[in-house]
């Protein structure tokens, strides 16, 4: 069965920003699906449209074969949502947050207590259940929010950048909990992230997004294979031309003295690359061999590194907000 079916989704903001520009995809029941892209790519807008928090300009959304607009309250009963910003109420205790949430989700009274208890246990929050959430750490707040899904048992759980701002060990914990919800409670999970490691670790399938559009989609393994070889990052003593003999490899990215080369077999290419640059009078200062990662997949399909895409989009956003304030 299809858990999420999105067709030709478009969201434009005035005057003419196309935040989401004709996106279609389907997520199968039981999958962990990741939407990967830099900040500003349109990921959050997609989630907000699915959750009914923002109206799409056009397009259709179906959750478990129900139309998200015509049967919105039924559909919301099937969905759980963990927004990017911490949304647990700091002025209430962890227990109270779960209690209020269970009531707003109409969890039956007889199941309420046992589910809240289970959620607290699962998320390792039992001991802090009666403390105000504002005294929790970031990781604990995140776990509490994921615990809400244990209480309301949605069919599809949406997480917007679930591990943003968390330290590495909290991050691993959050990932483990998400996987457990997927395996044990059979929840379909939809996450957005700009963290390649997170996407690689969690997702069965990934779609890469940039500028409001899907660039490519597939399993992490497929995507990595599609990069077509190993990546060599070379640092040179001076700027070099962006070309290499074809049988050595292909330059995919070059800034100042550092060059990324895509090659079929990294190990055998190393001596040949050194030889090539030495011949042109350059010294190879260092070289590192990387087996393909999702980073490289992003680079291949968008021609920029994800960090560059982010700083570009941040600059754009800053400019936009500056213009808004000035105008």
């Amino acid at each position: 069965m299809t858990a999420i079916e999105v067709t030709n989704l478009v969201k434009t903001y005035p005057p003419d920003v196309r935040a989401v520009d004709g996106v279609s995809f389907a997520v199968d029941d039981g999958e962990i699906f990741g939407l990967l892209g830099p900040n500003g790519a349109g990921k959050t807008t997609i989630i907000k449209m699915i959750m009914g928090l923002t109206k799409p300009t056009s397009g259709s959304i179906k959750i478990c074969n129900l139309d998200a607009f015509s049967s919105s309250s039924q559909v919301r009963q099937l969905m759980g949502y963990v927004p990017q910003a911490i949304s647990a109420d700091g002025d209430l205790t962890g227990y109270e947050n779960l209690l209020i949430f269970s009531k707003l989700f109409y969890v039956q009274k007889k199941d309420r207590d046992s589910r809240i208890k289970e959620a607290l246990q699962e998320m390792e929050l039992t001991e802090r259940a009666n403390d105000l959430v504002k005294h929790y750490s970031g990781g604990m707040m995140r776990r509490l929010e994921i615990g809400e899904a244990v209480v309301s048992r949605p069919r599809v759980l949406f997480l917007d950048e679930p591990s943003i701002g968390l330290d590495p060990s909290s991050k691993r914990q959050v990932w483990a909990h998400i996987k457990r919800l997927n395996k044990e409670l059979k929840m379909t999970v939809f996450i957005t992230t700009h963290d390649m490691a997170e996407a690689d670790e969690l997702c069965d399938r990934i779609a890469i997004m940039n500028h409001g559009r899907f660039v490519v989609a597939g399993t992490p393994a497929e995507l990595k294979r599609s990069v077509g070889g190993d990546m060599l990052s070379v640092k040179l003593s001076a700027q070099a031309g962006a070309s290499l003999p074809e049988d050595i490899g292909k330059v995919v990215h070059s800034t100042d003295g550092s060059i990324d080369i895509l090659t079929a077999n990294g190990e055998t290419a190393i001596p040949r690359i050194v030889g090539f640059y030495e011949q042109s009078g350059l010294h190879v200062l260092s070289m590192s061999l990387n087996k393909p990662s999702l980073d490289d997949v992003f680079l291949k399909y968008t021609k920029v590194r994800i960090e560059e895409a982010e700083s570009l989009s941040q600059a754009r956003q800053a400019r936009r907000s500056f213009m808004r304030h000035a105008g």
Partner: protein
Amino acid sequence: MNSISRFVSSSLTVAEMEARKIRHDSTELWTRLVQPALWLLVFGEVFTSIRGITQGNYTYIQFITPGVLAQSVLFVAIFYGITVVWERDVGILNKLLSTPSPRSSIIVGKALAAGVRGVFQAIMIFALALIIGVNLRFDILDVLGVFVVIVAFAMCFSSLSMILASFLKTRDRMMGIGQAITMPLFFASNAIYPLSLMPAWLQTVSLFNPLSYVVDAVRAMILTGDYSNLALDAAVLGGFTLLFLGVASISIRRIIE
């Protein structure tokens, strides 16, 4: 559960959130008592002693106690939209609106929450009035009636505040507009002087001011015992409350866009 009981249950749950928060931290309730206390203790006492304004057989401080009560609830309610803007900023509102609970039930719940705060406010002002010896009728049914009016009144103006919030969208602007409308509402009402002392044009204005009807109802119940206008007061207050709740339920989507 049918849709009506779901609606009621969600509204009560949102109000319950507020009550639980007050239980954890009641500082705000106490600080909000300062202003009405000043009105009663300073303004009320001074004007009582100069006998500048009298109404029937009542002292001035008796006369303004219902007005001060209504005013302090008005303050709670008119700034309630700021809480909603804040909840939007931190993501709590998005979370509430993503649950299967109907949007209008969240709004009604938020308005009820303002009512909860209003009731606490009323209890404290009653207590203060008792302590300083203001002579009021403390009939149990009347006091309950006052609480009903206070809840409806807080719901009325907190939903107006939520409507404003959905258009203004920032806390600063909400502070500004709140300041800008509370005092005119207060002065163009019968809270601190009888309508008969106002110039004719202001009397006309005050007819369109829900605060006048609230003060009139509260004054009837805890002071004069004259219920002749009570039905009109209740109808006007009820009408405004339903209107504002309806508009707020629709306009709230603007704040999260």
